């Protein structure tokens, strides 16, 4: 009796012991499985932008846009089952840091992709480095177009999208033909000014003068006098950076937009209107692929989640959205490739069909050029530090670059093609 009892107790204990062990094993296995999915090496995204210095007006919101996109990807289970991690580098509005950090990102930190670069000069500094170390660069910025390089992806507007919308509007709808062009004195400004001349002349307008300004010029009094002497109908600005912002202020306090139209390829992307007074910003005409005031559910949803994420309640603008769009487009390419390796992602983009239905409508990457098709809107600055929409163009392709670039035929091309103006 006693013996039996003891045996039974032992057996019961054994059973419970086994059961517990089994459960533990199962839960261990589960935990193990989870740990593996979690600790699957993170995919590292390098983000090189100007948090400080005169060009940070373009970067501050974009840094948050990139972070928001990565946060959303991670919340929905990561990419290919792996978490995504941002490695941020502050290029301080100085190209030498772009080259230094692009090298660090690719060699030391082994990033899968670099998102970043604002100015065309910073992009041209990073492109050869990305080339040399076999990386991938997403350049989330509007620019002068023409870069034909499979390791470079442009997600912003090019002249065929932006200027082909803006200039015909100014000439045909507003009837302003005689033009005066002011541009920043580096490759973006010079090539953009050429595009402006070409498109103005093609639309029956005339160019009175073209002038370039180094990025640290703050005093625009001399050129304002020359503009008044030439007396054009419209002034086009491709001015860049915090110092040049003074132009809009000085233009309003000498000439005034009531007397002369002001149109720009860069105004608004640096959120200039939030730092200018309502009179100084009202009436400037731009062409854009995203403004906070887009009246679509996708845009409104993006604006509200961006504000909740950043904890800031002010205007976001095009460049903040570019950061988000860039990461999402890259993520779609990674999913299609089934790998985050740069060469696999590049191959997936070459196939075509990489796209993202984003805040400003559908963005799709053209596999022949690695440039992006998107909706374009003409907008005008209003007195609320924001923009009113005037006209929209659906799904505009990056035609200028498509005319000169074919990565299917020449995958090893790395040229930046420029327009010819006689």
């Amino acid at each position, binding site marked *: 009796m006693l013996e039996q009892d003891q045996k039974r107790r032992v057996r019961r204990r054994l059973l419970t012991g086994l059961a517990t062990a089994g459960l533990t094993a199962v839960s261990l296995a589960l935990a193990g499985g989870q740990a593996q999915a979690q600790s699957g090496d993170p995919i590292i995204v390098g983000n090189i932008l100007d948090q400080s210095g005169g060009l940070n007006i373009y970067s501050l919101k974009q840094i948050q846009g990139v972070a928001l996109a990565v946060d959303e990807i991670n919340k929905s289970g990561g990419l290919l089952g792996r978490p995504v991690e941002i490695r941020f580098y502050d290029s301080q509005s100085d190209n030498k840091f772009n080259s230094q950090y692009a090298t660090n990102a690719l060699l030391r930190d082994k990033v899968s992709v670099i998102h970043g670069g604002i100015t065309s000069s910073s992009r041209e500094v990073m492109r050869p480095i990305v080339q040399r170390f076999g990386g991938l660069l997403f350049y989330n910025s509007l620019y002068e177009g023409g870069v034909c390089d499979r390791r470079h992806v442009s997600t912003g507007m090019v002249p065929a999208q932006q200027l082909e919308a803006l200039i015909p509007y100014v000439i045909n709808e507003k009837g302003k033909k005689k033009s005066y062009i002011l541009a920043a004195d580096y490759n973006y400004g010079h090539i953009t000014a050429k595009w402006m001349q070409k498109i103005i002349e093609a639309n029956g307008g005339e160019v009175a003068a073209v002038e370039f300004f180094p990025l640290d010029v703050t005093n625009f009094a001399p050129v304002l006098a020359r503009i008044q002497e030439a007396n054009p109908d419209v002034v086009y600005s491709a001015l860049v950076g915090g110092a040049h912002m003074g132009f809009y202020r000085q233009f309003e*306090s*000498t000439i005034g937009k009531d007397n002369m139209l002001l149109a720009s390829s860069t105004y608004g992307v640096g959120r200039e209107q939030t*730092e200018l007074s309502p009179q100084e910003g009202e009436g400037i005409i731009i062409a854009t692929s995203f403004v906070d005031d887009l009246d679509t559910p996708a845009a409104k949803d993006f604006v509200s989640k961006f504000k909740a994420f950043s904890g800031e309640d002010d205007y976001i603008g095009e460049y903040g959205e570019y950061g988000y769009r860039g990461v999402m487009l890259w993520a779609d390419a990674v999913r299609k490739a089934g790998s985050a390796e740069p060469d696999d992602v590049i191959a997936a983009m070459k196939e075509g069909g990489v796209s993202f239905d984003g805040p400003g409508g559908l963005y799709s990457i053209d596999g022949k050029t690695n440039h992006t098709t998107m909706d374009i809107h003409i907008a005008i600055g209003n007195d609320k530090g924001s923009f009113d929409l005037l006209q929209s163009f659906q799904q505009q392709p990056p035609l200028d670059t498509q005319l000169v670039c074919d990565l299917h035929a020449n995958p090893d091309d790395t040229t930046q093609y420029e327009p010819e103006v006689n």
Partner: protein
Amino acid sequence: MLEVVLIYGYQILFSISIFILISLGLAIIFGMMKVINLAHGEFIMLGALFCAQLAQGGIPLGLAIPLAGLIVGLVGIVGERLVIRFLYGRVLDTLLATWGLSLLIVGAVTTYFGPQTSSTPQNLGTLSLGTFSISVYSLVMILVAFALLIAIYCLWRMTKIGLIVRTTMQNAATAQALGINTDRVFTLTFGFGAFLAGLTGAILVPLFGASPTMGVFYIAKAFITVIAGGPLPLTGTLAASSLFGAIDGAVAYLTTSVLGEISVLFVAIILLRLLPQGITGRLKRGV
């Protein structure tokens, strides 16, 4: 024809007034006190920033400008008490210390106010000259620049305060022997220089805006002006500002802003080659 002459004159005076404004504070701190103040650009930035903040807070611009200048003056006094006063006579050490101070100010402003550009509008309107129109604010700025220069000249030459300051700067030991509290004179003079720099930033902010790193736009021009001016800080600053401003204004108006800046640097090099002591190098008396 008349309007072209007028607009020419305006361009040149505007340019000169900018040179005067950005170098006035430095003419006192570097020219008189021999402190190589690399934080001069940051004093200008602080003035611009405080003015924009005050004006955005609802204080009228005309009041915000002097107020911003006064705050920067206080910042200068604190900086002098904590750092600069240990370094008088050690010219190269002041360079290092003020460079550190400038980095500190940029860092503090970026952390506290954020790195974005801010500004405030002015509503003085425009003045029309035939086909040209010019901003009334710029005209007021030109007047203020010259008025400041004249006022400081009178202060130094005609008042007892000016005499005490000049004595102290010339020979502190003798001044002390005569019963002057030279410590306080140094502190207040430095604060006055900082006040002028801050005032400049505040005056310029409606035109040029304010951002933490804007100091670098002005520091080189300010030093070139004061150095080219030579040993008499005020007369020299006026002479050098007039020369550089006239060249910059005329060349920038006739050609481009870039050539304007290049021609100023070119003239400065030639000038210092011919007159290594600066424009006022041969003059024995005056301020």
